[in-house]
């Protein structure tokens, strides 16, 4: 197969901060490119484009209407013969036009709002999908997780991120039209006005841009500090910690550790806001300057007699509205520019290839697979210590192996490498003779049925949990699996049987199972996967009492005969139904063979077995002798 491909190991590669930055964000995209991409759905919808334009016109024209009516009325007031009726008619006409325009613009905005929400959700789905399929090791890389956090939030809100930007641009259409209309009107007075206006907007946008870039560059630090405080608070408020917290008087420590974190965070936050404040002097100046320029020009012209009183009043109200509009426009532009920085991060996340396993290979044959680890060494990404050191062993197709060893020997690590969750630092893993690194991720995962040590259930129904899907569930198979795992009696006692939801967060009448029952549920899930070509079980009976454990192992003996399987267990006695035992020690397989063979050899296995068994035997002998 494709053995010349350089193998990727993203979890390891992206440990380094610089490498991570350049991998996740290879190019700074120009603002318009990001916007172009963000506007793909809008570009494709004529209806929405039309709504943008209509809104801009109906909303943008409102300030101009105010100015015009002032002009008309003041003009009428100044005329030699004042017609009261005309005046009132004019005011009335204005009222009607105002009402119509504002109604239209409000309706356009409100009724199209959720269209944007639904579009954003498509991107949210892509993000969720990517999170659940990217390299597993990346989750244990805090720097990486902090980096992509802001990316997620871009797709998760109505008022910020991608959707916030869309709404703001929509509104900005109106502001822009207002600014242009008013600015155009004022240019009649002097083009200096338009120039001053442009300068104001430019200064504000540049200043805000500078601030948001500054914040964006340092976001990782703020996110990191925020995360620390958040996680600390969560742990303090964790109900499960309650017993130990009270018994060992930990409450005081939480306060003591939290306080400096908050101080540090506030210091950073203050640095951010200080910058904003110092630049606000500039923005304020620019704003007042516009007022100044316009006012002086107006007075000048009026004194020179170039404009009438009516003109003056109209232009003055235009000036006031103009500067308000400009402020709004600058704020909207600044918001959009700021959010697109984070929207780009979100796009970067979607674009970055984040699966190391992206090959095109296949696993030949049918039925149980054979496994071969060849000189596999592994250190956790970010550490140097080799947990596994040139590990080499075979598991034949259909062979049931037990993996034993001391704590921290690397048994769970070995399982994670086998399942494809981590990539070996060096060495290869072969499945039916094929290098697992050449397989596509989904293919590799689909080979296995697995039971992990942690057994927390999710709020699915029992059937969904066992079948790991919500459609096309083979209900008979679910029942069989539950029976084998020893959970059927309990499930049958529920009113809804296998359709009973778990946990109470989604359904108030959901079931809460005990630790042992949850473990049986996870065993059932592994058993459901009848077409799994290998079973992997990591301490599947740790939470069960002796009798329950015995029952399960009896089932395993029957059920897994002829299937490739790997068991991890501390309880050596439970490995007796396995064909072969592998002893992991010092990072490699120290001993292997059948139980009888290993027991006969002088070594760690014999020592482990006797150590665990002696308490039973001493007593049995003592009992027998009485």
């Amino acid at each position, binding site marked *: 197969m494709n053995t010349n491909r350089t193998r990727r190991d993203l979890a390891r590669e992206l440990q380094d901060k610089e490498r991570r930055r350049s991998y996740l964000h290879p190019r700074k995209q120009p603002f318009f490119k990001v916007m172009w991409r963000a506007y793909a759905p809008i570009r494709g919808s004529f209806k929405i484009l039309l709504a943008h334009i209509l809104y801009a016109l109906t909303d943008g024209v409102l300030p101009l209407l*105010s100015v015009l009516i002032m002009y008309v009325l003041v003009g009428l007031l100044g005329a030699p013969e004042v017609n009261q009726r005309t*005046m*009132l008619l004019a005011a*009335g006409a*204005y009222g009607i036009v105002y*009402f119509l325009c*504002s109604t239209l613009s*409000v309706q356009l905005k*409100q009724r199209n709002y*959720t269209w944007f*929400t639904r579009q954003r*959700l498509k991107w*949210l*789905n892509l993000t*969720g999908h990517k*999170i659940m399929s990217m390299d*597993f090791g990346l989750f244990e890389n*805090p720097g990486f997780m902090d980096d992509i956090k802001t990316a*997620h939030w871009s797709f*998760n809100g*109505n008022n910020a991120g991608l959707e916030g930007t869309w709404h703001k641009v929509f509104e900005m259409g109106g502001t822009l039209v207002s600014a242009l209309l008013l600015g155009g009107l004022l240019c009649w007075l002097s083009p200096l006005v338009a120039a001053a206006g442009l300068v104001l907007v430019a200064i504000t946008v540049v200043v805000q841009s500078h601030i948001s870039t500054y914040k964006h560059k340092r976001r990782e630090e703020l996110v990191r500090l925020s995360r620390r*405080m958040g996680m600390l608070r969560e742990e*303090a*408020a*964790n109900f499960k*910690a309650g*017993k130990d*917290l009270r*018994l060992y*008087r930990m*409450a005081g420590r*939480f306060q003591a*550790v939290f306080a400096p974190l908050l101080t540090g965070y*506030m210091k950073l*936050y203050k640095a951010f806001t200080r910058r904003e*404040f110092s630049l*606000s002097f500039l923005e304020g100046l620019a704003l007042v300057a516009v*007022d100044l320029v316009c*006012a002086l020009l107006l*007075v000048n012209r009026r004194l020179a007699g170039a404009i009438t*009183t009516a003109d003056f*009043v109209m232009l*003055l*109200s235009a000036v006031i509205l103009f500067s308000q509009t400009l402020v709004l426009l600058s704020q909207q532009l600044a918001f959009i520019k700021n959010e697109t920085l984070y929207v780009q991060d979100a796009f970067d996340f979607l674009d970055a290839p984040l699966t190391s396993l992206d090959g095109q290979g296949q696993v030949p044959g049918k039925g149980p697979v054979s496994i071969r680890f060849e000189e596999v060494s592994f250190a956790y990404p970010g550490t140097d210590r080799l947990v596994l050191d040139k590990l080499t062993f075979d598991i034949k197709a259909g062979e049931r192996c037990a993996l034993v*060893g001391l*704590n921290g020997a690397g048994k769970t690590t070995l399982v994670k490498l086998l399942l494809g969750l981590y990539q070996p630092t060096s060495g290869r893993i072969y499945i039916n003779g094929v290098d697992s690194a050449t397989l596509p991720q989904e293919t590799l995962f689909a080979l*296995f049925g*697995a039971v992990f040590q942690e057994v*927390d259930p999710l709020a699915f129904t029992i059937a969904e949990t066992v079948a*790991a899907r919500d459609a096309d569930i083979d209900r008979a198979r679910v029942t069989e699996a539950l029976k084998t795992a020893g959970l059927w009696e309990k499930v049958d006692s529920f009113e809804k049987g296998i359709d009973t939801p778990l946990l109470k967060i989604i359904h108030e009448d959901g079931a809460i199972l005990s630790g042992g029952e949850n473990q049986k549920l996870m065993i059932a899930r592994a058993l459901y996967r009848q077409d799994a070509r290998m079973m992997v079980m990591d301490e599947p009976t740790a939470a069960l009492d002796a*009798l329950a454990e*015995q029952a399960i192992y009896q089932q395993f003996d029957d059920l897994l005969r002829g299937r490739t399987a790997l068991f991890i267990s501390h*309880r050596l*006695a439970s490995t*007796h139904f396995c064909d072969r035992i592998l002893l992991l020690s010092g990072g490699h397989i120290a001993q292997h063979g059948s139980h*009888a063979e290993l027991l006969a050899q002088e070594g760690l296995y014999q020592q*482990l077995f006797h150590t*665990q068994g002696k308490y*039973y035997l001493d007593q049995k002998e*003592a009992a027998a002798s009485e």
Partner: protein
Amino acid sequence: MNKKRKQVKTADGLPRATTLQALRSLMKLIWQVDKAYYLILLFRSILGAASSLVNLILPKLLIDGFARGWEWEHFLKGILAFAAFKYLVLQALSFLKLKEKRHSEYLDNKVPMVFADKVMRLHYPQLEDPQVLDLKERAIFPITNYQALQGLLGAAIDIITSFLTLGGLAAVLFAFSPWFLLTLLALCVIASLLSARFSRYMRHALQDLIPTNRRYGYWFDTIFNPAFQKEFRVYGLNVLLLAKVNTYTGEIADWLNRLYARQGNNATLQNLFTALMRVMAYGYAALRVLGSQWGSQITLGDYSVIVLATENFFATFQRFFGGIFELISNVHHLLPFCQFMLLPEAEQPDGLIPEPLRTLAFENVSFRYPHGDRQILDDLSFHIYEGEKISIVGLNNAGKSTIVKLICRLFEPQSGRILYNGTDIREYNYQAYLQQLACVFQDFFLFPFTLRDNLDPEGNSPDEALLAILDEVSLEGVMARLPGGLDTHLNKAVWEDATDFSGGEKQKIAIARSLARTSSLVILDEPTAALDPLAESEVYEHFHELTRGRTAIFISHRMSSSTFCDKILLLQDGKMAAFDSHQALMKGHNLYRDLFMAQAQHFLEQQEA
């Protein structure tokens, strides 16, 4: 600290809080956390109002200047003065906005910690009550997902700012015509009352949405939860999980659609009033300019100001009303939070100081969990004497761990007593009593601090003593390769440089923690579940040294452990089925023998093979 106040309870036994009570308690909380905030709030609002009103000055200034026949220099001075004044106001506002932002960020981060602090002080049985857990989730959700606290503070600013602005505008309009002002106010009030119907609808709709949002939040957070990532990949759960997320996002989008449509209709109605008011303002003010039929004549300068003021008036009134609605809405969101803060805290009554254990006795103890459906312990009685090592054995859910919780006074039995040195444990000083106990729970918890903090949170023991204890539980090898030593952090989610200890290492740390205090009763609940045979054997071999001759209670599924205990307490159906030595129990036909043989036979078969 928590005075016993007669509390009103809801149907499910949780404390009740009205909107007003909630608002009051929130205000008190903000005062306690950050006193300066109220002052900043006030000044920020004053300046916000000032910056709105300042725009009224310019037109009057200029137009009246013309009426008085000012010269260019006069105008120049006037305009410059105005510009300077406006600039000052803007900068002062900017400064206060900065201050307010900092303080509200501080509050946003401090208040959740105050909440966590409350959790840490709760009366323990509530921590095993699913309804209290639910209340906790409902309490924290609006703060993290809706920014309810920020929303509350923002609404307060809007209310005060618009109120002050309204005051200024009202003053201008009053001078113009009190009747005009009154009519305007009347129209505003009518418009707002009509709007109130919509506000009420929105408030209820938002409340209705919260459970949906929480469920959506659960699924969404699960996608990012590191604990489930293995399963997602190996079992290909992407599709299933995203399907769950999408049921809620669809629901939420539909709900939003209905809300926005109604909001649009309401806004249209409000626009009608705005149009009406503007027409009124333009018309009436123009008439007053023309002559004194309708009131004293006003200048064109006044005309501009009146018109400007009127336009602002309704908008500001809407903001004021909107602010009040936002405030009430956010207080409603924070109701679960306020309810949670009313939950009873653990009482720390004074009492006798216990001496080291001589006897521990259960006397006809019956117990069932507060919301439980079965009797866990049924008239249980037994005695333990100083120095004894007792093993408690039974099937899953037999009540073994419950006995531990009762001894630790986390729960109280419904009937019967637990006697420590002959005295009911309830009569002892709680803290002093706990000091006599050293516990390793089955679901022990290690905290996100340093190793030293975990072993010795109050800093009573010197480093050497702690290192010695770590040696005893065979962690010296692990310690040797830790560059930070006792200063190593434990939780990687909080500290990037933390060390992820293996399950077995964590269990040893938990055991070490229990040894680091001077206690006379050691309770170990499944202390070797995560340990390999050698490590487990070490614990057993050194059990006597580890427990230093203290009285010990040992619970384990591994029957081998009971062989080095003096007596075994066999629990069956909540009762004491047997309480005797291993040898004695093995002679009879009982559950203990069955359990023991089930595990022993593997070793025996091998032996005989």
